[in-house]
């Protein structure tokens, strides 16, 4: 499916997301066993000024901030700002996200920490989650296989290395397949979102036969109409021709304002003002599970891009464990004690 409107949306997203002047930001969470978290934000920019409105992750004057600069091998100067702060618990981090006035203030982010005592070990779980932006979209898992999902969520360096490596043709084809499938996912989600928003706006209006059920039943039909008219989609929508075809002439005239509002809501959700960044997590003890990538410094790494949390929340999680040495000793002594008792009984009986 080659949907030009989707391509346009995708290129617009790219335009919003990828900008050479955007600072490269990496947030590292050093999780401590007591639930406190030392957060380190490293921002590298080609400009010396670090405007708060341009920053992906919030930090303020309460952080320990150090500025430095580095000159790359090609002579380019990068300005580096490092901010470090110890948060007593995740509530403090969540509060800072709520008060965020930076570049990604429109998205809802939160962290979670869980500590579980399991006698021999204590297990820790830390996660950073970004809420989904669309309410009626389809999960991307329905469209991509497990391998394709991993590839889609990979850091850019992995994708580039694979596409330039010895299996470049294979990965090029793989990437094209993913692109085709994500186009389909995006298209279906857009239609579903429009139906959801439009139903919400027209709900309760007298003589309305367009409830969410009846519109949902025609979702595939809507998709095909849009696909058929993809070349002149914008003009058809503006003239109201497309809407007439979708919901009938009478309804199109009656609910023109609601339909336009729903379309504008959908585009605002897709064309989200978001600047991408990376999240790193360093867990206490030994790592036992994660959905992230392990980087060269043995920390966990996740790229954060807007398409990851369009229809499903994006959770970056890691689990680790610390053995309870005292529990191992107590258990060992107890086992020896019981075993000795049983042996004594057997010997005396014998």
């Amino acid at each position, binding site marked *: 499916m080659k949907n030009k409107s989707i391509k346009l949306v995708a290129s617009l997203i790219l335009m919003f997301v990828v900008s050479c002047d955007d600072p*490269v930001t*990496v947030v590292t969470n050093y999780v401590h066993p007591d639930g406190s978290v030392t957060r380190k934000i*490293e921002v*590298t920019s080609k400009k*010396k000024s670090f405007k708060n409105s341009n920053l992906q992750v919030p930090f303020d004057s309460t952080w320990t901030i150090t500025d*430095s*600069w*580095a*000159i*790359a091998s*090609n*002579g*380019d*100067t*990068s300005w*580096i700002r*490092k901010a470090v702060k110890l948060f007593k618990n995740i509530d403090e981090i969540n509060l800072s996200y709520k008060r965020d006035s930076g570049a990604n203030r429109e998205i809802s982010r939160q962290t979670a920490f869980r500590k579980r005592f*399991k*006698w*021999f*070990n204590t297990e820790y779980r830390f996660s950073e989650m970004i809420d989904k932006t669309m309410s009626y979209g389809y999960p991307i898992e329905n469209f991509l296989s497990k391998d394709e999902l*991993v590839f889609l969520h*990979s*850091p850019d*360096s*992995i994708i580039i*290395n694979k596409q330039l490596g010895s299996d470049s043709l294979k990965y090029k084809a793989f990437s094209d397949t993913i692109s085709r499938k994500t186009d389909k996912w995006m298209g279906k989600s857009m239609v579903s979102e429009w139906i959801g928003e439009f139903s919400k706006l027209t709900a309760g209006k007298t003589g309305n036969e367009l409830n969410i059920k009846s519109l949902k039943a025609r979702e595939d039909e809507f998709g095909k109409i849009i696909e058929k008219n993809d070349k002149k989609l914008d003009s058809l929508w503006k003239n109201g021709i497309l809407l007439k075809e979708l919901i009938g002439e009478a309804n199109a005239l009656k609910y023109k304002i609601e339909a336009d509002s729903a379309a504008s809501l959908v585009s605002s959700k897709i064309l989200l003002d978001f600047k991408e960044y*990376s999240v*790193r997590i360093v867990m206490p003890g*030994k*790592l*036992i*599970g*994660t959905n992230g*990538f*392990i*980087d*060269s*410094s043995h920390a966990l*790494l996740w790229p954060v891009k807007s398409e990851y949390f369009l229809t499903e929340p994006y959770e970056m999680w890691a*689990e680790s*464990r610390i053995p309870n040495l005292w529990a191992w000793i107590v*258990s060992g002594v*107890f*086992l020896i004690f*019981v*075993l*000795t*008792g*049983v042996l*004594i*009984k057997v010997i005396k009986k014998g």
Partner: protein
Amino acid sequence: MEPENEKYRRVLNILRNSKPELGSTYNIENEVFKRISKVKQPKINLSDLIDFLFGWVYIGWVRRSLITASILLVLVFVYQQSVILKRIDALGRQTVVNERANIPESADEIEKLLMVYRYSGRRFPSKTITISERQINELIKSINELQVKYKDLENLLKGDPELKELIEKKLIENNSTKTSL
């Protein structure tokens, strides 16, 4: 009655005046101490201790409960460890990113790495070592020298804001020239 009382008094007087002569008070003392010490330090009997510690083995329900608890403990341990090992094994197959998120290493990171290297007995994992000990020492020496020079320069710039501004300006100019090229 009086002669009998008189007799009794006389006998008492005789007994009072004829005290026994103690020939060896030392022996008596020793004997007394021995007996006292015997009472205070009861003899430690190993079989009594075992009976005290493991008396529960003769009480059926206690024995069964403790054995059940031990088996459960072993099962929990085996289950937990196998789950953890399985998860760690799965982690081993996970993709490793060879880059460190595009952030250039700054002086304090290099210092930390050097500190780790120093405290780890100047050893690198065998698979990654590609340079000699002498070269590493030279590298550390040159980094240290560079850091000293950098700090001197930093101090110099701190004391002279005009010079700092000039250098920053030059760096930006240099950068923009290279970009335009």
